[in-house]
């Protein structure tokens, strides 16, 4: 954590990062404002790609590739499947925004104002020199499989649970458990005795 370095003129990395950041923010804005569902997914791809570029500039190469692989490759595809399965309209649809838009805009703007103010106020002078190779696969791998191995294994269990959960939720031939006998016996309606016909 180093202080110093004036803001102007910006270094080349900073300029590149800012351009990528602008692309990311712009495409994110399009994601939340576009009238077409599929376009939103595509703008999301652009946003994630720009962010991956940003990670590269920040010397986190491995994170950048994982971002491209998982987000751009898997998540967006998953989302597109979702769009398809819910029979969403492919063309323009006028009602993608709910009536809550104004409130949402106010809250979001307030959030942005507070966050930006606080961040600028807090890190005005923070400066970090960029050293290539810091986030290479080897470095990260050593860290993950030594220090972070336990959370890593836990994550694998989490993924398994998510997998099973998704399957259970998606399949229609798995019914919920019938009400247990004990609960039926404790039913507080004696007139409707469990005897039946």
């Amino acid at each position, binding site marked *: 954590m180093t202080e110093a370095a004036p803001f102007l003129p910006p270094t080349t990395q900073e300029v590149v990062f800012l351009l990528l950041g602008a692309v990311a923010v712009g495409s994110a804005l399009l994601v939340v404002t576009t009238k077409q569902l599929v376009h939103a997914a595509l703008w999301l791809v652009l946003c994630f790609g720009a962010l991956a570029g940003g990670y590269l500039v920040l010397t986190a190469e491995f994170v950048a590739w994982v971002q491209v692989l998982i987000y751009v490759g898997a998540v967006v595809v998953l989302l597109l499947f979702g769009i398809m399965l819910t029979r969403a309209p492919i063309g323009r649809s006028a009602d993608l925004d*709910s009536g*809550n838009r104004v*409130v*949402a805009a*106010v*809250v979001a703007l*307030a*959030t942005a104002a*507070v966050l930006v103010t*606080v961040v600028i106020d807090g890190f005005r002078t923070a400066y970090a020199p960029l050293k290539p190779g810091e986030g290479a696969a080897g470095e990260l791998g050593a860290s993950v499989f030594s220090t972070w191995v336990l959370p890593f294994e836990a994550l694998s269990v989490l993924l398994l649970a998510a997998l099973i959960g998704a399957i259970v939720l998606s399949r229609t031939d798995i019914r919920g458990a019938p009400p247990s006998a004990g609960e039926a016996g404790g039913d507080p309606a004696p007139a409707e005795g469990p005897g039946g016909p």
Partner: protein
Amino acid sequence: MSTTSSPFPLLIVALPFLAAFAGLLLSRWPRTRRPQPGAAEAKGQEAGHQHRGGNRRAAWIAVLPTAVSAALALWLAAAQGFAFFAERAVDPVGADYGEIVTGTVPITLTLQADALSGVLGVLVTLVALAVQVYSVGYLHDDRRYPSYSAFISLFTSAMLLVVYSGDLLVLYVGWEVMGLCSYLLIGHWWEDRSNSRAAVKAFLVTRLGDVGFLFGIFVLGISADSFRIADVLAKVPEMSTATLVTATMLLLAGVAGKSAQVPLHTWLPDAMAGPTPISALIHAATMVAAGIFIVARLFPAFLGARPTLDVLAVMAALGMLGAALAALAQDDLKRVLAYSTISQLSYMAGGLAAGSDHAAIFHLLTHGAFKALLFLCAGAVIHHVGSNLMSQMGGLRRELPVTFAATTIGFAALMGLPPASGFFSKDSLLLAMDGAVSGAALTDAAALLLYASALATVVVTGAYSARAWLRTFFGPGRTIALPEPQPGTAHVVDTREAPPTMLIPIVLLAVPALLLGFAGGLHLDVGVATISVVLALLGSGVVYAFWRGDPVADPARILGPFRVPCERAFYVDSVYAALFVRPILALSRLVVSTDDRVVDGAVRGSGRTARGLSGVLRLAQNGNVQLYVSGVLAGVLLIVVGAVMFA
């Protein structure tokens, strides 16, 4: 003044009281099952028998104690030698039954009989006895006869308490119970709305006077430092005139209410809605006389307050002539008698104002006898005809000979014709008023007004007596087949004459009505007596002349254009309605609507406001998760801003 100890006053008061409770509790015991409405036809005969059985028992319960009381009262008065008529003082007879400590002025429970109480007790018990016996025949099929007779007993007891009480507050208890009984008995046939209204009216009007009466008692009792009547009267010379005037004026309000004197007289004619025996007992002979009795009882106090006597004289003068004129124009026989009662009570009040309590009480006694007789006769006539209206009567002297004779005696006494009792008592009253003109007790104007009014009233009394007499018993018969009588009117019976239970009291009452006048000693003033007889005969002669001209038409037409105002009793009721009733009704309607709109409205409004406000809050709970999350995030933002700025 020493008191001779005797239990008689207590017995006389307590016997009817116990009879009232026994009559209420025991007459329907063992309880007979009331037949179901559907089975009424089948069991009607049986139910009638049950009623009659209960009624017979109630009649015995009512009549016997009253008879014993009457005998005791008679004995008590005889033991004192009827000292009242001899105008000599006797030691009061009675006993103290302890003292109620109130913190300031104690209340003594004293019952005593002096000369005044003795004769009045006889009058009350005898008239009550006559009325009880009479009612047995008059109401023999009435379903509520047991409660009716019990109320009469209670009334008798209360009136006797007033008469025999030696303490003003004890007297007041009896005074109020009488008012209650009057209310209950006027409303005996409460199924008819007008009857219950008359009862409420009587209750309210007399209550208005009673407020003044109570405070008058307070003033007297506090200034004398005792509520004992004897102590109060002993302290009268020491009291200031202002105190006496205040006290007597307040008492006068109660007197006017109870005795139906001019400002508060309007309830009495309406009270005729009750059964006729009640009118005889309460509204002619006894209760209305209580006011006169009180004035006589506290007469020394009144003598010390000359302005009060002037007011009393003016009230009496207005009341006697106005009521007599109103009586002349009425068509309802009982209302004629009611206005005649007001007029005669005003006579007594006038006698009191003129300074002669003896004459007033003498007239009270004779009036009690002959007016009770007249009412009982009227009851017999109404019983026979089935209507109160004189326009439906006529020619009854052949059908009801006994009643005719008794009524003739009664009217003779009312007009003041010798030798009937009223002649003597009215003569002594007129003599007293004559003396007041030259005396110093009253201011000259009041005395003159009183005397002139009394003489004029003699004329009018003769006129309306003759009119009622002629229209009821002479002329062509107008009796027609009447439909089934409504409750509130008497029952039609087929007998030619009333049943013996009704006739015997009439005959017995006719004797004192005719002869009581001789008891007072024959000190006649020939001049005044001649004038009054001539005037009375003049009035009745004019009416007779008009009646001879056209026996069918109402002789009241001699009043000419004044007839309608007289019939409406000079619109006093209407004036009261406009002055008091309607404003109060409007005010109470305002209160009701205020309660409904403002008070209840506030309550309902707060409920509605809460619901409305909660409705506003409910708008946020619309189930939209995004809105909820927006709220959460906005809250978090506020917290963050606060934390950043103030931390």
